[in-house]
């Protein structure tokens, strides 16, 4: 395996899980739909690599945070649709709060003066 792919997965892992779970909170979606939703909701900034998306989906499925079913789409195509489970919802909560902590922390590091001023 070339190092290029490996690094990307490694870097995105925690974040990508959060993004997928969050996307599924609004209803079941297939893989392509998830990638499109992330892309649109991020204003075309986040483009999820397929080579990261599907391994992540299958891993989340194995962890029982999401489940998958074959459905027929509007275009009469068979698609694999993912849905959030109860466990997935809990996981999403904890990932969200972890992310909030992380981004606060990073913001604090990036703007120490502002923080001091507020205090």
């Amino acid at each position, binding site marked *: 395996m070339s190092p290029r792919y490996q690094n990307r997965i490694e870097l995105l892992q925690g974040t990508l899980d959060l993004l997928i779970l969050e996307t599924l909170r609004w209803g079941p979606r297939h893989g*392509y739909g998830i990638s499109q939703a992330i892309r649109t909701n991020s204003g075309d900034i986040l483009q999820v690599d397929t080579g990261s998306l599907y391994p992540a989906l299958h891993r989340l499925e194995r962890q029982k945070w999401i489940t998958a079913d074959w459905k027929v789409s509007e275009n009469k195509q068979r698609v694999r649709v993912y849905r959030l489970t109860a466990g997935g919802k809990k996981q999403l909560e904890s990932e969200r709060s972890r992310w909030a902590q992380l981004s606060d922390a990073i913001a604090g590091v990036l703007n120490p003066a502002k923080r001091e001023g507020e205090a």
Partner: protein
Amino acid sequence: MTFSLWNRQKREGELDEELQSHLRMAVEDRTERGETEDEASRAARRELGNVGLIKEVTREMWGGASFEKLIQDVRYGLRMLRKSPGFTAVAILTLALGIGANTALFSVVNGVLFNPLPYPHPEQLVWLAESKPNFATGSISFPNFLDWQKNNQTFTSMSLSRGYSYNLTGLGEAEQLRGRLISSDFFAVLGVNPAMGRSFAPGEDAIGAAPIAMISGGLWKRKFGSSPEILGRSLTLDGKAYTIVGVVPASFELSLGGFHDIDVYVPIGQWGNPLLPKRGAGLGFHGIGRLKPGVSIEQARADMQGVTQGLAAAYPDTDKGIGAGVFSLKQTMVKDLRVFLLVLLAAVGFVLSIACVNVANLMLARSSVRTREFAIRTAMGASRGRLLRQLLTESLLLASTGGTIGLLLAGWGTNVAIAQLPVTLPRAAEIGLDARVLLFTLLITLACGILFGLGPALKSARPNLHDTLKEGGRGGSGSRHRAQGVFVVVEMAMALVLLIAAGLMIRSLTALWNVNPGFDSHNLLTFGVALPPSMSMADPAAIRAALRRVDQELAAVPGVQSVSLSWAATPIASDDEDLFWIEGQPKPASDSEMNMALSYVVEESYLNVMRTPLERGRFFTAQDNENSSRVVVVDDSFRKQYFGEKDPIGRHIFLTNKGGRAEIVGVVAHVKQWGLDSDDKEKLHAQLYFPYMQLPDEAMALSWNGTGVMVRYDPKAPAIGESMRAAIKRISSEHVMSSTQTMDSIISGSLATQQVSLILLGAFAALALGLASSGIYGVISYVVEQRTQEIGVRMALGAKRTDVLRLVLGTGMKMAGIGVAMGLAGAFGLTQLMASLLFGVSATDPLTFTVVAILLTIVALTACSIPARRAMRVDPMVALRYE
């Protein structure tokens, strides 16, 4: 979570479908945005990326995949191996032979050295002997044994036994039986129960007890058809009727000298030898004891030291200076074979290592052909770990196929091979494939698979994608060349060690065959003759007459040049000792202070038969008989030891067991009684010749039942052994001839360990040499092929053909040189281990080391010269145009 194979296949399909639908939706989105079908499809594909890799990585997420991957790897591996049947066959055959030879040798080592003896609590069993001034493991006298038994504190039980040949009559043709005189608890000590009946009860081994016997399972079957009504029947041994009380299990086997193929067991007390009750008599008895639970050999030795010191104080005349030797029974059985077997096991291990290196070389050569395949697989999404696993699976497939065939070969061949060996291996019946051998085979098979698989696999699994795909497989040749170079160096080094080991054995055996035994062993036949059992009661004159008759009959056989009756006068095969003192010196106060000499009882023709040189005086004549005064002849060692530079002729000695005063009439050369290799190591060398017909009456009375015969024959005479047997049978049908052997075969048998070592080490070394030279040939050929253009350029720039030759040979010689240097260093340490197998040559013999190193270098040079010549013939034009 586990997936069945079927489940996984289904999921595989689903994953495929999922990605396809992803792609389709992406294309649809793009066409809706106004891209052409073509553009959309291309862009979507690019966006999707490497589908193979995505699948590979996604599959990893499923977990529980190892088994499925293994199956896939094995399938693929089998397909690859089938695709190159030549490589596969050579590799499997090489490994099968290597692993087979190792398994066979290990099963021997396991059966002989490692496994416990097949008796209950074998660790408690010890072998017993008397330590005497002249013999570290001398025989135990019957009275001493009885006192040992009574006085010791550390033994549960103790037994005594010796071999004895019986003349069996009354059951078909008279024949000689191998018998054993045993004390009552012989079988109890070993924990062996009779298959039928009973063993001897305490007291039944006493002198004067009723004659009873136990027979072997073999004799029971052969002579009595395994009849269940055997107990209580009578067996006529040496003309005396013995009642059969028990049958020894047919499986009973004791791998000690003299215990082979015993037919009949008789209580010690039945032996009519008048010396039996004498405390000082050395009659060839040795003991086996069982230690009390928890008692160590050291404790038993300390205990026995006390016992023997007590006896020495009580009977100083016979027991002064006599101790007890206590040795582990197992170690006594396998003593000198330990080094022999371990050296061979090491050698065969070397051969397997070389075989592995050769297969690794083949794999490496093949992997360069497969570089493209690996590059494509990588491009298709195979991870490096996956490729590595695939290659290791292939090498393990090769190894396990080779290992299975090797195991079959070993299982079938080991016992066949052992039967062919000129050495009688102790415990041979216990050799087989048990769990430990199977585990050993499994381990070496796995080790081989990893050993020869991992190196090439690591190399191949790191392909330089870009270059390889572009240039079609030239990438990484430099590192391949280096790896091969290392392999060749290792092969050379190991081959050198084996060659040196074989060379040292050749030097040892040459030295041994050049040892002058003191007689001419060629065309010399030896056997035993027993007179009819009716002679057991005959008077000495009648026995002398009967023996002279045997003499005449044998001498008259065509092809016989001279014949001598003998007693303990077959060097190496038999020995007997006499106590004496020299007239003119004070008579020693006790037997234990007497001088001891090897005693050869022979006839006047003995010197002609043996061709031992006479050095002074005369040998015996027909007139040195029962009616004339006693004479003896001594050997050169005797003369030097007891007379120094003085002339022994005309001096007298007193023999304690052969009738007293006798005159020394001659001196003959020393005979290597204890064997060509070990005579110098023994303490007792002085030899004494005594005329057969002058044997005192009591000794003559015993000799009816077995006297030795030495015959010098014409090598052109056909079937001399058969003619001898016919001549004996002509005298009477109750005369029995036994243990016919040529003197050459006795000597050869005494050197069997060295000879087998030479044969096997030689074979292993030859194999190693062949593998190593083919290895260096292959690498140099490859180097020449790779550098054809460079050579062409050099030649175009004016390099001479000799320069090219020097260039190529130089590369080969560098590898050979490093290999030889490493091999010499290795051999320097390793040959020490075989020092005890060597004779007349040091383990680091400079001559052997030098000659073998030169020999190996020449072979390597020859192997390199073939590709070197090819390089010399390179046409610069052709080579350059090819580029």
